Structures are given as C-alpha cells and as structure tokens.
C-alpha cells in the first residue's frame, strides 16, 4: 500500500470505524475518532514529504469515469488542513460535545452521530482534494454537503437548526448541480472527465465557458461568496466545533480549493478572473462591513469568514505568483486562526453561557491563556507582523499592486476592516470590565486553541514550511515552479507601506467606532433583512403557497373524474389531426342491400349504447348494456363469425346474470340514487351533468373518428390470418378460431384465462372482506 492509498483509506475509514465502535459502546466513539483522525493527519503529513503515486483505476467505463486520485501539492495542503484542524477540532469536541448534549438534555449516545458525521466530512474532504476525475470530485463534493447538513441540523429539535440546515443544503446542493452540468459539458465537449487530460486538451469555447462558470458558481456558493453567502451566518446554529471546522477552516475552503483545481482552465479566459475579482471584492467588503457590527460572536466570525474567503477569491482573481501562491498561504493562515477564534467563542460560551459580545467582558483575568492564544490567532488574521497572517496580507498587497491603484485602496480598506472587527471581537471578550460569572472549563477546551494560536505565531517566525506547502499547492494551479519565500523586509516596500496604512487605519477605525457604528449597524441590519436570504425565504414560501393553491384546484375539480382522462386523450387526438396533417380520409362505402339487417343491428346497438349512457337507475343501465352486447352478437353472426357470435351471446348472458346478482348486493339507497352526488347543490349538479355529457360525447366522437379513419384504410393483402387458415389443417383442426385460440395464439388464451382466474381471486377477496366487516 502506498502513501496515497493509505491517506485515502485512513481518512475514509474514520467515520465508519467511529460509527461502528460508537454503536457498540458510545464511550468508544471519542477515542476512536481522535485516533483515526490522528492517523489520517500523520498520513497527510507523510504525503507532504513523500507524496505517493497517483491512483488510477477503472470505475465506470461506460461513462469514462475513473477512480483517479493524486496527492499533489494542492491536495496535500487541503488534506493537511482537513486532518490537522480536524484533529484539533475533534479533540476539542471530545470535551465540548458531552457538555453540549448535557445542556440540550439529550442522551450521550448522540455523540456517536456527531463524530461519525464530522469524520465523514473529513473523509469526503480528503477524497475531494485528491480526486482528479470530475465525477469523483462531484461525489465527494456532495458528501461534504451531506455531512454539513447533518451537522448544522445536529440540534434538529430546534426549529432554528432545521431552517439553517435546510438553507445550507439547498444553496450548496443546488449550486453543486451546476458543477455536475459543467463536468458533463466538459466531458461532452472534450471527451474526458480526467482533469489532467482536460487541462491538456481544453481549447476555450462557448461550451467550456458555460461549463466553467457553472463550476465557479458551485465553488463560490460553497465558499459563501456574495450573493450566495447567506447560508453561512445561519449555519452558525451548528455546535461550535462544526462552525470552527466545516464552516470556516475546511468545508468552506472547498470552494476556493475548487477554484485552485480548475485554475489552469480559468486563466484561459481573462474575464473569468475579473469575475472572481468582482465577487471576491464584493464579498470582502460586504462580509467585512457586516462583521464590524455583529454582536453575536459566531455571527461576527461567520461574516469575517465570508470576507476572508472574499480575500482569497480576490487573490485568485488577481492571479500571478503573488495572487495564487499567496491565496494558498492565506488559506492556511486563515484556517489556523479562524478555527482558533471559533473555538474560543465556544469555550467562552461554555464558561459564561453568553453568546453575545455585549454579554461578556474582562475574561483576560479569569482565562489569561485563552486570551493570549486567541489574541495570537486574531493578530494573525489581522495581519500583525510577527504572525503568520502578516505574510498573507503581504502577498495580497503585492498582487493588488500589480493591478492598479483602486485595487490597492480596496485591499487596504479590507485589511483595515479586518483589523477593526477582530479587535472588537478580542476586546469584547477579554477586555473591558468583568461581566457575568465564569465557570471553569476543562483543559481540553483550551489546549487546541493554544496549539492553533501557537502555530499562528510560529508561522510568523518560521514561515518557510507553511510557504512550502502553499507553494506546492500553487504550483498545481499555476502549472509553474514558482515558490514563496516569505521574509520581513525592513524597508519602504509598497507592501510594507500598505500594511502600515492598513493597521493604522484599522486602529483609527476601531477607536472611532462611536462615530460610524450606528450607521453601519443600520445598514448591515438592512442588508441582512432585504438581502438574498430574504429572497430565498420568500421564494420558498411563495412556492409553497402556490403549491397549496394548485393542489386545492386539483382536489376540488379534477381528481377522480373520468373526464380528466377522457378529455385530454380526445384533445391529443384533435391535436394530432390538426398538426400532423394525418391522412384523414374518411371513406363511406355504398351500403349493399344485403347489409340492411347488419346496419339495423348496429343501429340497435348504438341506440342501446346511448340509452345506457343516460343516467337512470342501475337496473335499466345494465339492461341497456346487455342490449348493446346482444345486438353486437347478432352483428358478429351476420358477419359470418359464428364462433365469435356464440361466445358473445354466452358472455352477454353470463354477464347479465352476474350483473344483476351484483346489483342485488348494492345497498337500496345506492341502487336508486341519482348519479350526481347528493352533497352538491342542484344547479351545480346540473352544470356538472351538462359538462360531463359534452365531454363524453366529445370523447366518443373522437373515438369514432379514429375508428373510422383507420377502417378507411385498405387492409393489407397478405394478412397473417391467411397463414392461420392455411395452417389450420396441419394443426389437426377444423375450426380456425379454435385452432387460433388453442394453438397459434394459445399463449394469449393462457394469459386470458389467467386474467379470469385472477379476477375470480379478486372478487373472492373483496366479497370475503365484506363478510368480515
């Protein structure tokens, strides 16, 4: 087994193993989860140094799908993120989830579910980042969405959780359909699902443009970019470790991962980069603005996530070495720092019970270690020198500088906002006067944050290993051999000036918040209220109302009416007659004098038929019906078909008797009841009767036309019937009809007597049921 296979298996087996052990004994879920994640992390680390060879096996040759996975640089970066931050979060969860379940009055067994889904996500994410086959990417892509759905809806007893889970699933699930279409279009156009082959063969054209835009939409929705961002703040109803892991560091990163994966195709069209740029900038600004004023800690971080991925998308849009490789670096820095901040929020809520910044304060006294660790994380995200995040902004500024003055301004403003809201976040929790009471928290709710914070600091002093991972990833996207070598330049480079400007204006912004806070808050609230989320909710609501309305119409007017089948069928015949210019010659042969009796009998049958259709009591209807039957038997006899006539007479006789016997079974009031249900008003009943008569006449007329039209066509000269006649003597028979029935078409007879037998079974069943009642 090589390193690639091992990483894949380790990641994919974590969830089933945890679920199995957890099902056997709930207390085993936690240790197994931690152990399997740790193994997966080690496997990912190993692949970082010695990537295994690519896996490429047949999967579904019918469609050219292959199990094609490779631990390339891009895969290693995201696998490290998924398993590494995964490990931290799962260790954290092992302390958090039992407490959470306790608060929610839920049984402890439910934690197995939690760990199974969160590990399912880890497996799916690892698979996703390694997959080179578009369909395989799609499969893992949606697996991450499923895991996210169940984790957001983990507290499904709460309405809020159900609504949020639904919203997240709909947005990410539907945008994933875009990916599927894009993948199938690329396959249809270039004949392959394999990304390396596509990268080699795609010549941009109309189809590939649409395909890539659809894929980008899927990616941007997953990374919660405006205007498909609104699900992310709602997703914060999930337990905090989920927010830290899926909804900031890993799953949301899948969107930018996808951009990275398809980057070699995206760069072929300049306008696609511009598209990324626009979406990224809008998200960065909108997310930043909203984050500035949110009071709920997790909401603030969620908007910050939108803004940060806006950064990264913008960097991809800016392109080049600084843009793309820098984006990779930013993904790492953001993942480490943001998960630490989310976990901080979780720990704080656990300790104080508060979810809002306004309800906590002064925790630096009671939780100094936490204050330090999360301070480091916040500093990193805010790009303070000596933290890892500083370099991400350096590359951002560098890329922006290549793109002109406007971009530089936007970059600085975005960075300033980042600084401001993070300062608000940190100061809101740890600074200021002491608010509320603090209960002690277990160390397991602190340790992961400390590690993540320490890593953010480490990256500031020794960025080289992180930069190497980012470079390897960026090389896959850029198809180049560029490398990042982050270092501090103590000179007046443009980037340094911009960084200083950003921090300076961030500080200014933070201290002047009395001035702008109310305005921005109002605007943000308005944005939340009338933004795309509102459109989504209104859309779902209106669809449901519309559905109610048409359903009511169907139930009231259409259901259980024969006319609803008859009328459309007749209509289809009419349409056919009109539009296909069906050869509709209707011939009328001159009647022969010998046919007089025949015509008379047919006339009688027709009259009896009409009589049967006039609603009276069942008895006369049955009589009229048998009149039709007997008249037709005579017709058969006159047409020199004695066998058929004999059968027809017998069947009519039998049916008559059975029919009357059935009528005897009907309750008295039904037998003589009016055909129109009595619960309808008289006029309406009349109205229905007229309508039904017209429809019935219409249907009958068209059936007549069809029959006439067909019979007007000449019969072929050599019908199979001639063969029957010729072969009858050979089949030891004299009567052709019987030989046909028992020999040539004996299988039909066999079938029909089976039908009779089954009918008997049915009658017996229904009548016996009556007896039981």
């Amino acid at each position, binding site marked *: 087994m090589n390193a690639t296979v091992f990483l894949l298996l380790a990641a994919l087996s974590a969830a089933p193993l945890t679920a199995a052990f957890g099902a056997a004994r709930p207390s085993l879920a936690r240790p197994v989860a931690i152990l399997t994640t740790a193994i997966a992390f080690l496997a990912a680390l190993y692949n970082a140094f010695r990537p295994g060879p690519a896996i490429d096996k047949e999967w579904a040759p019918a469609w050219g799908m292959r199990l094609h996975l490779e631990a390339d640089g891009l895969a290693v970066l995201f696998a490290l993120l998924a398993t590494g931050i995964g490990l931290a979060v799962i260790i954290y969860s092992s302390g958090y989830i039992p407490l959470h379940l306790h608060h929610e009055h839920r049984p402890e067994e439910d934690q197995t579910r939690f760990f199974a889904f969160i590990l399912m996500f880890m497996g799916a994410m690892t698979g996703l980042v390694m997959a080179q086959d578009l369909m395989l990417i799609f499969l893992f892509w949606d697996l991450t969405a499923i895991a996210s759905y169940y984790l957001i809806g983990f507290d499904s007893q709460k309405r809020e959780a159900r609504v949020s889970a639904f919203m997240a699933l709909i947005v990410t699930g539907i945008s994933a359909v875009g990916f599927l279409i894009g993948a199938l279009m690329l396959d249809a156009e270039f004949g392959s699902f394999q990304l390396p082959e596509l990268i080699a063969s795609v010549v941009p054209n109309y189809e590939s443009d649409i395909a890539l835009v659809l894929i980008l939409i899927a990616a941007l929705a997953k990374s919660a970019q405006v205007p498909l961002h609104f699900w992310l703040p709602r997703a914060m109803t999930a337990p905090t470790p989920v927010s830290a892991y899926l909804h900031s560091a890993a799953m949301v990163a899948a969107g930018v991962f996808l951009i990275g994966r398809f980057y070699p195709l995206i760069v072929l069209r300049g306008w696609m980069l511009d598209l990324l740029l626009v979406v990224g900038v809008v998200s960065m600004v909108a997310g930043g603005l909203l984050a500035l004023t949110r009071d709920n800690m997790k909401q603030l971080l969620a908007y910050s996530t939108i803004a940060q991925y806006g950064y990264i998308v913008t960097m991809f849009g800016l392109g080049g070495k600084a843009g793309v490789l820098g984006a990779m670096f930013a993904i790492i820095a953001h993942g480490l720092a943001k998960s630490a901040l989310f976990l901080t929020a979780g720990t704080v809520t656990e300790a104080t019970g508060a979810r809002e910044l306004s309800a906590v304060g002064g925790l630096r006294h009671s939780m100094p270690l936490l204050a330090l660790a999360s301070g480091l994380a916040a500093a990193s995200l805010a790009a303070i020198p000596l933290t890892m995040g500083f370099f991400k902004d350096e590359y951002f500024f560098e890329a922006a500088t290549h793109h002109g003055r406007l971009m530089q301004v936007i970059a600085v403003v975005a960075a300033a906002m980042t600084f401001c809201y993070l300062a608000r976040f940190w100061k809101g929790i740890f600074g200021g006067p002491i608010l509320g009471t603090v209960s002690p928290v277990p160390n397991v709710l602190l340790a992961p944050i400390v590690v993540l914070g320490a890593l953010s600091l480490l990256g500031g002093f020794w960025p080289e290993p992180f930069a190497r991972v980012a470079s390897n990833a960026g090389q896959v996207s850029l198809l180049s051999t560029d490398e990042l070598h982050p270092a501090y330049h103590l000179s007046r480079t443009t980037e340094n000036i911009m960084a200083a400007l950003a921090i300076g204006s961030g500080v200014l912004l933070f201290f002047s918040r009395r001035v702008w806070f109310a305005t921005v808050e109002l605007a943000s609230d308005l944005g939340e209220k009338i933004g795309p989320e509102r459109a989504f909710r209104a859309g779902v609501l209106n669809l449901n109302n519309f559905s109610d309305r048409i359903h009511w119409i169907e139930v009231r007017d259409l259901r259980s009416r024969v006319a609803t089948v008859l009328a459309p069928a007749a209509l289809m015949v009419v349409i056919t007659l009109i539009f296909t210019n069906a050869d509709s010659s209707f011939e009328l042969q001159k009647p022969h004098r010998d046919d007089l009796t025949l015509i008379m009998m047919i006339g009688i049958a027709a009259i009896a038929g009409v009589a049967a259709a006039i609603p009276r009591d069942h008895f006369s209807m049955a009589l009229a019906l048998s009149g039709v039957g007997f008249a037709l038997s005579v017709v058969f006899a006159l047409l020199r078909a004695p066998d058929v006539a004999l059968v027809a007479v017998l069947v009519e006789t039998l049916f008559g008797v059975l029919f009357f*016997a059935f009528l005897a079974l009907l309750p008295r009031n039904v037998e003589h009841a009016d055909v129109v249900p009595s619960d309808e008003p008289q006029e309406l009943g009349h109205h229905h009767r007229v309508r039904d008569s017209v429809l019935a006449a219409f249907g009958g007329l068209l059936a007549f036309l069809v029959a006439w039209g067909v019979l007007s066509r000449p019969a072929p000269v050599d019908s199979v019937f001639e063969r029957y006649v010729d072969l009858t003597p050979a089949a030891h028979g004299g009567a052709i009809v019987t030989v046909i029935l*028992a020999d040539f078409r004996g299988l039909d007879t066999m079938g029909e007597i089976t039908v009779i037998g089954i009918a008997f079974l049915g009658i017996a069943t229904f009548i016996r049921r009556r007896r039981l009642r």
Partner: protein
Amino acid sequence: MNNDMARQAARLLLLPTWMVAFAILIKGYSDSGDGFSGGVIAALGVIMQYVTFGTAVAEKLRPVRYARQIALTGLLLALATAFTPVLRGQSIMTHFPGPNEHATHIGSLELTTPFLFDIGVFLLVMGVCVGVFDLLAHATRRDRS
C-alpha cells in the same frame, strides 16, 4: 309459468346443459365452439339451479362445492400443457402430435394436446363462473337476512 314448472325444467335441464357444454368442448376443434363457450354453458346450467332452487339446494351440487378447485385444476392443466414442451427442450405451447403428424382418433375427435388445453380452459371458465355466482349468492343471502 308457475314456479313448479320452472323447477322441473331446471332440474331436467341440468344434465342436458352439461352434455351440450361437453359436446361444444369436444367438437370445438373441428367445428364451432370451444372450451370457453362450453365452460360458460356448463356454468349457466348450474346458475339456473341457483335461480330456481335457491342457494341452499344449488350449493349441494359438486361443481359448486369445488368451484375453486375446478378452476385451479383447469388453470394448472392449461399451464402444464403450455410449459411441458419447454422441459423437453421445445418451444412453449408446442402441441403433440406436431403438424401433419399422425394422431389417434376416437370417432371424429383427435387426441391431441390442444384438446387437453381446451379442457383446461373449460374447467377454469366453468369453475370461475360458478364460483363467482356462489360468492354473490352467499353475500346477497346474508344481506337479506
């Protein structure tokens, strides 16, 4: 026509009806008629007994008591005729003797498997018709009481 006469006629007619039915079945292969018509006629004979004598008397007739079994036997007989050739590696519904081969005669009746098949049809149709009528008669009588 008084009731007694009807009863007399019905009683007298039962056997002739069955004979006619049987004749129609047997001659079916060379002349008009077949197992289906025969079955219906035989059943009508039984139903006549119901109409004239009522359920209690009619039920004593054997075809009534074993209607279900008769129908099933007929169906199985027909099925067996159809599927037996398959077991011998021939097509389904292959009859014996084959086309233009010699067949044993009893009078004008040729002993062939289609005849067997027709008997199956006859039994099924008769069994079902009688059976259904019996069910109805029962249900009606219960309703009345």
